[in-house]
C-alpha cells in the first residue's frame, strides 16, 4: 500500500491525533461534509494499519503504537459519540477499529476491555445506539463485539440502559428491531455464568419476566419467535433455576404460553411447547397454575395428541410430549354429568 511506505506521511500516533481533532469538530456548525471526508480518509488509513491490504500484512508494532495513542486520548469516545455524523463507510471503519482493539491481548489481559471499563461513558453511548436509527446496526456490531468479554457483558447487564432493549426490539424498522434483539440475545446467552449471577437478583428476574412477556405477547411474528426461544433457552438452563421457578409459578405466564401454544404458527407452537412443558413437569405447581391445567385438561389432551405431527421422528420431543400427556391425564377431571345428577337428587 502506497501511503505506508512511499509517502509515509503520518505515524499511527499522529493519525489518531489528527483524527481526534477532526472528529471533535464534527458536531460544530462548520462544513461537515469536508470534515467527514477528512475523517473518512484517516479512518481508512487506520483500517489498513489494522488489517493490512493486498501487498502488506498488518504490523504488530504499528498496531501497538496506534492502540497506545487511542488509550491515551479521547479517540474512542469521540468516535462513539459522533458516529451519526460520520459517513456511511467510515462507520464501518470504526467497527473495525473497535473489534481489532478488543481482540488485542497482552499476557492474559485485554487492555481495551480494561480501558473501556474505566471509561464507562463510551460503552453507554454505544449501548444507547438504537436511539438513533441510522447508527443502530453499527453500534450493535460494536456492542456485540464488546459482549464477547464477560466483564463488559456484566457491566452492560447491570446498566439501566439494558432494559431499553425490550423497547428497541419493537422498533418499526425491521433491521433495527432485529439487530437490537441480537444484542439482547447475546447479552443473555453468551456468558452463562454472568447471566445466572445476574438472574440471582430477584428484582432482575421480575423485570425480565415482565419485559420478555411483553415481547412474546405483543411482538410481531419474528419478535415472538425469537423471544419465546430466548425465554425457553434461559429457563431450561440449569444455572437459572430461580428464573425457572418464578416463571412457572405464575398463572399469568401460563396464559401467555398457552395462548402461544395455540397460535396458528407451528413454529410458535413448537417453541411455546418447550416452556409449557416446564409448567406441567413442575412437581410443585402453584394453585392457580394447577387450576388452569385442570380446567383445560381435556382440551390439552386432545391438543397434545395431535400436536406437531411433522416432528414425530424427533424422539426427544415425542417422549416429552407423551410425558406431558401422561401428566395431564392424571389431573383430576371435572365430570359434568355426575355433578349435575348429584344436584338433581
Amino acid at each position, binding site marked *: 500500500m502506497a501511503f505506508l511506505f512511499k509517502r509515509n506521511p503520518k505515524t499511527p500516533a499522529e493519525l489518531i491525533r489528527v483524527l481526534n481533532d477532526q472528529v471533535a469538530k464534527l458536531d460544530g456548525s462548520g462544513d461537515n461534509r469536508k470534515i467527514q471526508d477528512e475523517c473518512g480518509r484517516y479512518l481508512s488509513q487506520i483500517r489498513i494499519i489494522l488489517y493490512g491490504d493486498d501487498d502488506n500484512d498488518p504490523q504488530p508494532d504499528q498496531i501497538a503504537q496506534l492502540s497506545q495513542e487511542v488509550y491515551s486520548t479521547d479517540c474512542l469516545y469521540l468516535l462513539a459519540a459522533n458516529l451519526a455524523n460520520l459517513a456511511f463507510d467510515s462507520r464501518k471503519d470504526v467497527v473495525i477499529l473497535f473489534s481489532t482493539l478488543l481482540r488485542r491481548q497482552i499476557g492474559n489481559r485485554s487492555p481495551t476491555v480494561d480501558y473501556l471499563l474505566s471509561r464507562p461513558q463510551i460503552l453507554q453511548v454505544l449501548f444507547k445506539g438504537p436511539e438513533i436509527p441510522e447508527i443502530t446496526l453499527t453500534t450493535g456490531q460494536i456492542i456485540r463485539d464488546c459482549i464477547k468479554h464477560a466483564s463488559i457483558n456484566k457491566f452492560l447487564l447491570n446498566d439501566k440502559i439494558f432494559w431499553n432493549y425490550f423497547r428497541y426490539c419493537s422498533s418499526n424498522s425491521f433491521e433495527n428491531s432485529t439487530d437490537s434483539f441480537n444484542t439482547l440475545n447475546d447479552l443473555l446467552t453468551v456468558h452463562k455464568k454472568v447471566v445466572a449471577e445476574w438472574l440471582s437478583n430477584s428484582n432482575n428476574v421480575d423485570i425480565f419476566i415482565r419485559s420478555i412477556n411483553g415481547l412474546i405477547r405483543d411482538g410481531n*411474528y419474528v419478535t415472538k419467535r425469537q423471544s419465546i426461544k430466548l425465554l425457553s433457552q434461559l429457563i431450561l438452563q440449569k444455572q437459572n433455576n430461580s428464573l425457572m421457578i418464578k416463571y412457572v409459578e405464575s398463572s399469568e405466564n401460563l396464559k401467555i404460553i398457552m395462548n402461544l401454544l395455540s397460535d396458528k404458527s407451528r413454529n410458535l407452537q413448537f417453541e411455546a411447547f418447550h416452556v409449557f412443558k416446564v409448567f406441567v413437569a413442575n412437581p410443585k405447581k402453584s394453585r392457580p397454575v394447577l387450576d*388452569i391445567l385442570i380446567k383445560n385438561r381435556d382440551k390439552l389432551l386432545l391438543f397434545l395428541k395431535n400436536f406437531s405431527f411433522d416432528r414425530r421422528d424427533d424422539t426427544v420431543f415425542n417422549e416429552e410430549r407423551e410425558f406431558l400427556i401422561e401428566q395431564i391425564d392424571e389431573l383430576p377431571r371435572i365430570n359434568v354429568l355426575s355433578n349435575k345428577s348429584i344436584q338433581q337428587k
Partner: protein
Amino acid sequence: MSIDPADVFNIKECIGRGTFGEVYKAIDKRTNDVVALKVVNLEESNEDIKVLVQEIGFLSQLRSPYITTYFGTYLRDVSMWISMEYCGGGSCADLLRCHKKLSEDVTCFIIRDCLKGLKYLHSEMKIHRDIKAANILLTPTGQVKLADFGVSGQITATHVKKQTFVGTPFWMAPEMITRKFGYNEKVDIWSLGITVIELITGSPPHASHDPLKVLFRIPREPAPVLIGDDFTEAIKEFTQCCLIKVPSKRPSAEWLLNHRFIKHCRRNVNAVALIQQKQDWFAKNSRHKPCSRYKKDPLVNDVYNDDYKTAFKWSFTTKNLSTPDIINYEFSDEMLFDSPQVYSSSSIVNTSSVGKNSGKDSKSVPSKNLSSPDTNATTPNDNVDIPCSQKTVMTGKEMQIDYLRDILLYCLKKVSNRAKTSGTKETVLQLAKTVVEFEHQQVGLSEAIIEEIWLRINGLKNEGFL
C-alpha cells in the same frame, strides 16, 4: 405501527422462485421505483431464523454500484418482504440464451464490473458463493451488477430443483467441494473463471454431465482451460489465473483488475444493443420467459390471512373450579375431526383475558395482527363466566348444554380415543360426522337422543340393573 408492505408495493408478475419463496417485480408506491421483491416465508423454515435475520442486517450495510442495492425489509404475517434493486436488463444467462455466446469485448466488460463488485464484497468480508452468469444482472442502460449473495442468494437460488444441498456444481471451486480446510473468498474467483468460460463459449465446463458427478470431477481433474485460436492469449491467461486449484495461489479480485485482459477492456462496448436484442428475442419466444408459470400471489401464503385466530380456546377463568364451566367448554366440530391446524371460524381470540387478570399490567393489547384488525380480540372471555351462587341452583336445562357438542361429540371423542386401531377410530369419526350432519337437518335431534338415553339409564338404574 409498522408498515404493511402490501400497502407499499404494487405487485406485478413473478420473476423467479427460490427455496423459501418467490421473487416479484413490484412498484414501491412511495417512490414509484420498480423493485425486485423477494417474499420469504419464515414459517417454512423450522431452523433458527437468527441467521436469516442477521444476513438481512448485513445486506443492509452493503452499498456499491456493482451489486444490486438493498432497499429494505418488511414483515407481513409470517413472511419477510425484501425489497431490492430491480435490474430490467435481465441476467447474463438470459443474454446467453439469446446470443448463445458473447464476444471477448463484452465478456471483458462484464467481468471487469463483476471484479469491482467482488472487490467490494470481499473488502466487506463477504463471500458471494454463487457467481455465475445467472447471478450477474444488467440494467437496461447496460450497468452490470452482482445479485443473489448471502441470504437473498440462498433463498432464491435459481436451479433449486436440479441441485442438491450445495450451490451450483459447475461453478464450484474444488476446495468448496472437498471442504478439507474450509474455504474463503477465493471461491468467488474460481467461479468467476468458470463464468468467463461460460460467457465466451455459452456454457460452463462439464455442462453436459450429471451435476452430481461433476462434484467429484472438479476436485480430481486438472483445472479447465480455454484452448484454441478462437481466443486471445489475454483471456486464456486470465481464466488460467482464476482457475488455479490452490486457493492461496489464486489471485484476489483487486489483483485481477490489473490483469491485461481487464486493463485493455474496450470502453465503448455496446451492451445496451445486446440487451435490447435479447429483450426482443424473449418477446418473440415467450415460452422462454423466465418462470411465467410461477405466477402466484404472495398474499396467499399468509398464515393469519383472515382474522388472527388461535387453534384452541383455553379457559382461563378459575374462580369456580368446583362447578363445571360448560359454556366455555367448547369443541368445534372441526377440532374434533382434524388436527389443530384446522381453525374454527367462530373461535375468538382471547388475549385480553390475560391483561385483565393481571391487574397492574391491565392495558389490553390486541394480539399483534399482521393482516387485519380483529374486532373480537378485545372481548374478554371472563364475561361468560357465571357466578358460583347462581350455578348451584341451576338445573340442567337452564344451563344451556349444547347436547351435540358437550355430550354426543364429547363422548364420541372419548370413544375414539379408546379405539385401538385406526379403522375403529375412523368409524367413530364417521359416526360423529353423521351425527353433526343429522343434527343440522333435524335441530334438536341430539337433545332427544340424549334425553332418551338418560331416561333409559336412570330407569335401568332404578330397576337395579345398573
